[in-house]
C-alpha cells in the first residue's frame, strides 16, 4: 500500500469522531436572562459585558429566524440547548500547561495538535477552544515580548477591557441578524488578538475549535485587531465528535484592520458532516466580517470547507478605508447529504478599493452547494474594482450546484467583472490521466486539486498540505 492509499484508509471514516469522556459544568438548558447572567457570572465578567449580552438578548427576542437560504433544516429548538459547557477542571483556570487536565492534552494530541510548546517544530501559536472555553494558549511569552496580545476572549475581557470595549461589536453590532445576535448574547469564549502598531507577527496564530459535549451549541467569538502597519496571519480549524443529533455552531468573528495593516484569516473547517445518510452533523452558521477601517489596509479570507451538515456563512469585507483591499478565496466541498450556502460580501465604501473573489465549489453524492455573494459598490467608492470568479464542479446527477451573485454598482468610475462556470470533469482529462497510469480516483483527485489550486496556494504551508489531503478524502467514493 503506498502512502496515499494508507492515508485514505486511515481517514476514510471521520477520524475526529471520538468523544472525550470528561466531566463538564453546564449551564441549565434553555435560553433566558438567567442563563445569560449565569454565563456572565461564571466568567466573572464586568457589568458592561453583561449589559452588552442583555442588550443583544433583548434584540434577539424580537428577531425571526431567517429562512431565505437554500438548504432548509428542521426547526431548531433554542430552548433545548445547553449554552454553556466547560470541562470541570477548567473552573479555576490552570496557570500553566502542566496543570491542564491530561485528558484534554490527550484529546488535542489525538487531533494532531500538541499543546506542549516543545512538541511544535514550526512556530504556530495555538489557542485551543474546547466546547465553550479556551483551554490553552501556547507561545504566550514569546508573543508578549513583541507586545502582541493573543489570549482567550474571557481573559481579554478581564485584562484588556479597554481594547475589548472599544472594538467588540463594532463590526458585527449587537443588533445584527438572528444568529449573530444570539451569539452576542450567549458567546462563551474564543480568541482575542491584538497586534500593536508596526509589528509583524512572527508566527502564525491559530485557534482550534472542538465541540465535545452533546446537546450543546458552540458560540465562540473571535476578535482580531491589527493596529497601524501591522500584519497577522491567523488560522482556524474545527472538528466535532460523531453524533446522531445535529449540533449548532454559531460563531462571530470580527476583524479590524487599521491604516496599512493586513490580516490574513484562513479556515479549514472539518466539522462532523453527518453519516452517509445525512444523519447528524454540525450546523455551521457562522458570521464572519472584517472591517478595513484604515487607509491601505487589507483583509483576506481563505476557507476550505469540507465538513458540517449545513454550512451557511458569508465571510465579508467592509472596505471603508481608501485604497483598502478585500480578498476571498474559497473551496467548498459537499458530499453525501451535506449542504452548503456560502460565499462572501464585499462592500466598497472607500475610494480606490479593490476586491477579489475566487470561489470553487465541488458537489458530489446527494449534496447541494450554493455560492451566494454580494458585491456592492457605493456611490462614494470612486475608482474601485471587483473581480469575481466562481466555478462549480458537479459529480453525478443527484447533486446540485447553484450560483447566486448579487451585483450592485452605484458608481460609474468603478468596474465589476463577474464570471461563473459550471461543468463536470471532462472525459478527456480523465482519460488522459488514466492513460498515464493513474486509477480513476487518483485522476479525479489530481484534477480536483488542480481545479482548487488558486485557492490552496493562498493557504499557509502547513495548512495547504492538510487541506489538499482533505480535498481528496472528502470526495472518496464519489467517482464511478
Amino acid at each position, binding site marked *: 500500500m503506498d502512502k496515499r492509499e494508507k492515508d485514505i484508509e486511515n481517514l476514510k471514516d471521520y477520524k475526529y469522531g471520538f468523544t472525550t469522556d470528561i466531566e463538564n459544568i453546564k449551564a441549565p438548558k434553555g435560553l433566558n436572562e438567567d442563563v445569560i447572567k449565569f454565563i456572565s457570572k461564571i466568567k466573572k465578567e464586568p457589568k458592561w459585558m453583561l449589559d452588552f449580552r442583555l442588550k443583544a438578548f433583548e434584540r434577539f427576542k424580537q428577531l425571526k429566524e431567517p429562512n431565505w437560504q437554500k438548504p432548509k433544516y428542521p426547526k431548531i429548538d433554542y430552548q433545548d440547548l445547553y449554552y454553556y459547557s466547560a470541562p470541570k477542571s477548567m473552573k479555576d483556570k490552570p496557570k500553566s500547561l502542566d496543570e491542564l487536565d491530561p485528558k484534554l492534552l490527550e484529546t488535542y494530541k489525538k487531533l494532531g495538535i500538541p499543546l506542549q510548546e516543545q512538541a511544535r517544530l514550526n512556530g504556530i501559536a495555538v489557542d485551543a477552544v474546547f466546547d465553550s472555553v479556551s483551554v490553552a494558549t501556547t507561545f504566550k511569552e514569546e508573543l508578549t515580548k513583541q507586545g502582541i496580545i493573543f489570549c482567550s476572549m474571557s481573559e481579554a475581557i478581564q485584562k484588556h477591557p479597554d481594547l475589548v470595549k472599544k472594538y467588540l461589536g463594532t463590526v458585527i453590532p449587537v443588533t445584527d441578524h438572528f444568529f449573530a445576535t444570539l451569539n452576542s448574547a450567549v458567546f462563551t469564549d474564543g480568541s482575542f488578538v491584538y497586534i500593536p502598531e508596526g509589528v509583524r507577527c512572527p508566527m502564525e496564530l491559530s485557534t482550534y475549535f472542538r465541540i465535545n459535549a452533546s446537546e450543546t451549541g458552540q458560540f465562540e467569538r473571535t476578535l482580531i485587531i491589527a493596529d497601524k502597519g501591522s500584519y497577522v496571519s491567523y488560522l482556524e480549524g474545527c472538528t466535532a465528535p460523531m453524533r446522531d443529533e445535529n449540533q449548532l455552531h454559531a460563531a462571530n468573528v470580527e476583524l479590524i484592520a487599521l491604516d496599512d495593516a493586513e490580516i490574513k484569516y484562513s479556515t479549514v473547517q472539518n466539522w462532523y458532516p453527518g453519516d452517509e445518510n445525512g444523519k447528524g452533523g454540525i450546523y455551521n452558521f457562522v458570521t464572519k466580517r472584517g472591517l478595513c477601517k484604515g487607509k491601505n489596509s487589507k483583509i483576506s479570507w481563505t476557507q476550505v470547507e469540507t465538513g458540517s451538515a449545513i454550512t451557511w456563512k458569508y465571510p465579508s469585507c467592509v472596505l471603508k478605508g481608501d485604497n483598502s483591499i478585500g480578498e476571498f478565496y474559497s473551496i467548498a466541498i459537499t458530499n453525501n447529504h451535506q449542504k452548503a450556502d456560502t460565499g462572501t460580501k464585499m462592500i466598497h465604501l472607500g475610494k480606490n478599493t479593490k476586491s477579489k473573489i475566487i470561489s470553487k465549489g465541488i458537489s458530489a453524492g446527494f449534496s447541494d452547494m450554493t455560492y451566494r455573494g454580494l458585491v456592492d459598490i457605493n456611490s462614494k467608492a470612486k475608482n474601485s474594482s471587483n473581480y469575481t470568479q466562481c466555478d462549480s464542479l458537479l459529480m453525478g446527477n443527484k447533486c446540485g450546484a447553484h*450560483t447566486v*451573485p*448579487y451585483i450592485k454598482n452605484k458608481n*460609474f468610475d*468603478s468596474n465589476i*467583472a463577474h464570471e*461563473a462556470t459550471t461543468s463536470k470533469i471532462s472525459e478527456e482529462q480523465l482519460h488522459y490521466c488514466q492513460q498515464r497510469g493513474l486509477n480513476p480516483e487518483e485522476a479525479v483527485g489530481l484534477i480536483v486539486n488542480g481545479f482548487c489550486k488558486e485557492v490552496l496556494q493562498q493557504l499557509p504551508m502547513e495548512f495547504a498540505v492538510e487541506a489538499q489531503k482533505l480535498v481528496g478524502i472528502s470526495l472518496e467514493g464519489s467517482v464511478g
Partner: protein
Amino acid sequence: MSEQLQSDFDKLVKTSKFSHEEIKFKKNFLNNFIKNGFPNRKQEDWKFLDISQIIKKNISDLSFFNDYSQSNKIDPSILVDGLEHNKIIFINGKIEKIDFNVEDQNKIEIIDETKKDISFDYENSLIDLNSAFTYKVFKIIIKKDYSLKKPLIIYHSTNDKIKSTNINLRLDFELGENSCLKLIDYFANTKTKNFINIFYNFNLEKDSILKNYKIDKFINNNLKYSFNNIEQGNNSISETFILSAGSDYFKNEINCNLNGEYSSAFINGIFSLKENQQHEIRTSINHLVENTKSYQLIKSVLGKNSKSAYQGRIFVNSKAQKTDGYQLSKAILLDETSEFNAKPELEIYADDVKCSHGSASGSLDENSIFYLMSRGLNYQQSKELLINGFLMDVVEKITDVEIKNLITNIIGLK
C-alpha cells in the same frame, strides 16, 4: 386599497357582460390580490425595484376601473411605416382593431375566451391583478405548417382620456407544429401616467418558431409590467428581444419552460435609460429535458439618476443533461448617479452541462475615447460611437433582417 379594488371590480362587472362562471373566477383572483397586494422588496424577485413603492410615489390615486364600453379613435400617426404588417391595436387596454388581412384566413384562428385559468405555478400577485381585471382574453392560434407572411405588430397605446388607471391586458398564443410567428410589441403612449400590466401566454408546439420584439422607445411616463410565459415543445425556438428605453418604469419578465428536447430560447435586451428611469428584466429559463439550449445577452447604458436591474435565472433539472446555458450582462454607467444591479443566477442539478454567466459594469473606456478623438471626432461623437457599437452588438443578434432594419431605424443606430 382593498375597498377601492372591490368597488372598481364591481363597476367592471356592471359594465361588462361576464358570465357567472367568469365572475367567480375573477373574484378568486381579486381576493388573492387583495390578500397579497402589490409585490414589494421583501420578495426576492422584486428586491432591486420595489413596484409597490414606485406606484405609490408616482400614482397616488390609482384607479383599477377602466371603462371598456367606450371606443377610441385610432390615431394613424402611431402606425409603423415602411413595413407591411398585421395589426392588433390596443387603445387604453381595449382592442380597437384586429387585422390579419394579408394572411391566409383559414390558417389563423382568433377565439375570445375570457374564462381562462392559469396553467402554471406562479407567485406573482400582478398576475392575479391581471386575471381579475382583464376585459377580454383573445387566443390567437396559428395552425400547423403555417408561417405568417408578415410580422404581427401589437400596438399598445393610451390617449389622454384616461389617467392614473391600471390597464390589464392579456393575450394567448398557440403556435401549431412547424408554424412561425414574428411578433412586435410596439409601445406608443402619451405622457399621462398609467400602470399597464401585460400578460402573454405562448404555447409552442413541435418545430415552431416564435420571435418576439418588444419596443419601448418613446419617452412616456407610464409604469409598465410585462410577463411572458413561454412553453416550448420539441425542437422549437423562441427569440425575445427587448428594447427598454421609453417608460418611467418597465419590468419585463420572461418565464420560459423548455419542455421538449432540442428546444432553445434566446433573450436579448437593451436598456437605454435617461433621467429617473428605472427598468428591469427578469428571466427564468427552465431546462427540463435533455439537449436544450438558452442564450441571454443584456446590455445597459445608464444616464443620470437611472437604474437598471437584470435578474437572470437558469434552472437545470437533473434530467436535463447536455444543457447549454449562457448569460451575459454588461453595463455602461454614464453618470455618477446611475446604478446597475444584477443577479445572474444558476441553479443546476445535472452534471453533464455547460452553463456559464458573466457580468461586467463600468464607465466608458477613456482610452477608446482618446483613440477616437485623436482621429478627429469630438468628445460627444466619440462617446456616441462607442455606445452605438456597444448596443449594436445586441441588435445584431436579431435573426430577422427586415425587423432588424426596422429596429435599427427606430433606435437610430447606424
